[in-house]
C-alpha cells in the first residue's frame, strides 16, 4: 500500500488549560481501512476524533485530510461525518428528516434528497420507520438511523465515537457485524473510537492503542494481541502474564531475562544486558505439568490459588513462592489428565518462542 494516507496527524497535541489530552501525535489513516482508536477513558481517543471533526482545535500540529491541512476549517466546512456516542439524533425531526438533514444543508432539492434518504433507510432496513419520531424507536433502530444520517452523503470517511456503548450485549454483537459489512461494502474509511477490546479486535483492520494522550501501539489485532509492544499494552489487554526483570545473557551466551521468579530464556536478541524490561507470556501459551518439565523450556513452580470456568475454557490462577501471580487459560480437555486442586503445586512452562519482551 503505497497510496497517500487519507488523514494524517502531524505532531498534533491538544491541551485543555494545564491538562494535556493528546501529546504530540503522529498518525496516518489509510484510505478505506477500518481503524479503531482504543484506550480507557481519558486516554485522548475521543479528543483525537473530535479534532478530526473540527469540534476541538489542536493546540499544535497539523491535521491533513486528503493531503490538505484542515486545522482552520470550521466543522461545517469539513466532510467528516460523525456518529456520536449519544447518537445526537434530532428529536424534533422524523426519522427520514434526520437522514435528509445533511443533504438539505448541501442544498439538494427536496425530491432528490428524499429519494436518497429512502434508499439509505432501505439499506439500513428501517424504511418502515421513515415517518416515526426518534423517541418511538428502539436502541438498535436509532443506531441504524444515525448511521444512515451520516452515510447518506457518501463520505470518504466516517467517524464513530463509541456508538454501540448504549446497546445490550447481544445487539452489540449484531451491530458489530452490520458495521463491518457496511464498511467492506462501501469502502468508506471508518475511524472507530472504543474502550472495548472485543469491539476493536472484531471489527478493525488496524487498532491504535492510546494511553494518557500517547499512542502506545499501532497494528493489526493479531499483532497487538500476540506481541504487545509496551508493558501498558500487555496490561491493558490483560491476556499476558508479565514478569518484570533485567536482561542478561545466560552461560551459553543466549539471551535471557532475570526476574523475581527465575531466569528465563528468550528467543533471539533483545537488547543490551543490564537493561530493564518485562517478559510477557500469553496465558494461552502456558503449560501446566505435575512433574518438572524437561530442560529447554522455561519453567516455574507455583501453587494453585484459584480457578474460573467460563464456557469452553478454564482459567487457573497460580502464585509463585515469590508472590508473582500467573494466569493460565486451558480448554477442559487439556486439563483432563491433571488433578487440579486448590493449594497444590504445579510446574508451569512455556517455550522461549512464546516469550516476548516489552520495554516500559
Amino acid at each position, binding site marked *: 500500500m503505497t497510496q497517500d494516507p487519507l488523514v494524517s496527524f502531524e505532531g498534533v497535541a491538544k491541551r485543555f488549560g494545564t491538562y494535556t489530552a493528546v501529546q504530540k501525535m503522529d498518525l496516518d489513516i489509510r484510505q478505506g481501512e477500518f481503524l479503531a482508536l482504543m484506550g480507557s477513558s481519558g486516554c485522548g481517543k475521543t479528543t483525537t476524533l473530535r479534532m478530526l471533526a473540527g469540534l476541538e482545535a489542536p493546540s499544535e500540529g497539523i491535521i491533513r485530510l486528503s493531503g490538505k491541512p484542515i486545522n482552520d476549517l470550521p466543522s461545517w466546512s469539513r466532510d467528516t*461525518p460523525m456518529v456520536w456516542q*449519544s447518537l445526537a439524533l434530532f428529536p424534533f425531526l422524523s426519522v427520514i428528516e434526520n437522514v435528509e438533514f445533511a443533504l438539505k444543508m448541501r442544498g439538494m432539492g427536496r425530491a432528490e434528497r428524499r429519494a436518497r434518504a429512502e434508499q439509505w433507510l432501505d439499506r439500513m432496513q428501517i424504511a418502515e420507520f421513515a415517518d416515526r419520531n426518534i423517541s*418511538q424507536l428502539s436502541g438498535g433502530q436509532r443506531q441504524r438511523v444515525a448511521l444512515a444520517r451520516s452515510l447518506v452523503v457518501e463520505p470518504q470517511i466516517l467517524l464513530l465515537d463509541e456508538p454501540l456503548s448504549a446497546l445490550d450485549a447481544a445487539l452489540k454483537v449484531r451491530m458489530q457485524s452490520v458495521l463491518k459489512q457496511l464498511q467492506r461494502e462501501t469502502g468508506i474509511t471508518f475511524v472507530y473510537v472504543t474502550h472495548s477490546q472485543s469491539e476493536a479486535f472484531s471489527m478493525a483492520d488496524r487498532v491504535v492503542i492510546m494511553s494518557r494522550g500517547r499512542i502506545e501501539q499501532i497494528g493489526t489485532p493479531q499483532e497487538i494481541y500476540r506481541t504487545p509492544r509496551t508493558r501498558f499494552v500487555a496490561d491493558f489487554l490483560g491476556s499476558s502474564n508479565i514478569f518484570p526483570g533485567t536482561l542478561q545473557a545466560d552461560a551459553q551466551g543466549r539471551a535471557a531475562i532475570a526476574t523475581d521468579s527465575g531466569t528465563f530464556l528468550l528467543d533471539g536478541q533483545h537488547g543490551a544486558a543490564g537493561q530493564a524490561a518485562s517478559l510477557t507470556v500469553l496465558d494461552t501459551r502456558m503449560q501446566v505439568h505435575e512433574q518438572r518439565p524437561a530442560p529447554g523450556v522455561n519453567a516455574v513452580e507455583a501453587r494453585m490459588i484459584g480457578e474460573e470456568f467460563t464456557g469452553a475454557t478454564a482459567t487457573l490462577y497460580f502464585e509463585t513462592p515469590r508472590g508473582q501471580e500467573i494466569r493460565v487459560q486451558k480448554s477442559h480437555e487439556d486439563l483432563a489428565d491433571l488433578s487440579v486442586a486448590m493449594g497444590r503445586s504445579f510446574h508451569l512452562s512455556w517455550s522461549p518462542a512464546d516469550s516476548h519482551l516489552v520495554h516500559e
Partner: protein
Amino acid sequence: MGRRISAYGLTFSLPMLIWQLLFFVFPLVFLIALSFWTVRNFRMQPDFDTVNWTTMYGRAIFWQAYGTTLALAAGAAVLTSLLAFPVAYAISFKLSDRARRWAIMLMVIPFFTSYLVRIYSWQVFLSDAGIINVMLGWIGLGPYGLLNTPGATLLGFVTLAFPLVVLLQLFSLIFIDRTLIEAAHNMRCGRLRTVFAVVIPSARVGLVIAALFAFILSFGDFVSPIYLGGGDPTTLSILITDTTKSGQQWPRAAVIALTMIVTLMAVAFLSIRFAYRGRK
C-alpha cells in the same frame, strides 16, 4: 407508591389542598356566582340574572378594550421574546460557566424589586421633562410625548416580562444536548442556520412557554396601562378597576374577570398544544 390512604400521607397532602380550595378555587368559583348577582341602590344582592353579561357584552367599550388588551399582550409576548432571545442565547452558549452564574443571578434580582417602583422610574425617564427628553434636548431634539402612549405601555409590559422570559428561554437553551449542535455543524450546517434548524426547534417548548408567560403577565397587568399608557386606550384590567370603583358594580367586574380567565386558559391551551405539536 400505591394508592393507599394513610393518616401520615394525608397530613402532608391535605393542608395545601384545603387552603388552595378554600382561598384560591372558591374565590374564583365565587366570581362565577357573583357575575349573576344584581346591584340595587349600590347594594349587591344574590340573584341569578344574566343582566351583567348582556350589559357588558353589549358595550362597544368592552370589545374595544378586549381587542386592545389582546393586541397589546400579544405584541408584548412577541416583542419580549424577540428581544430576550439573543440574551438567553448568548448567556447559554457564549459565556463561561462563571459569567453565566452571575448573569442568571442578576436576572433574578428584578423579581424582588417592586414593579410599581420600576414603572414609576420609567415615568421619570419618559415624561416631558424627563431624562430621555432632557438628553434629546442636548442634541436639539424633542421634547417628544413619550409618556401616555401605547408604546410606553408596551415598555412597561416588556419591563415586567423580560427577566422571566430570558430565564425561561435560558433554561430551555442550556439543556439542549450540545451534541445536537455539534452534529448539525458536522453535517454542514453553519452557525446562523444551526440556530434556526436545531437550537430553536430543540427549545421550542421552552420558548413558547416563555412567550405564554409574557402574554399572561401583560394581559392581566393594570399598572403599566394606567401609569405609562395613561389609561388610554382602555384595557380590560383598567375596565375591571373602573367598574369595581363605580357604584359597587362588582358583578360586572366579575364578568370581565371571567372573560379574561377564559381567554387566558384558551391561549394557554393553544400555545401548549402548539409547543408540543408533532411530539408523541
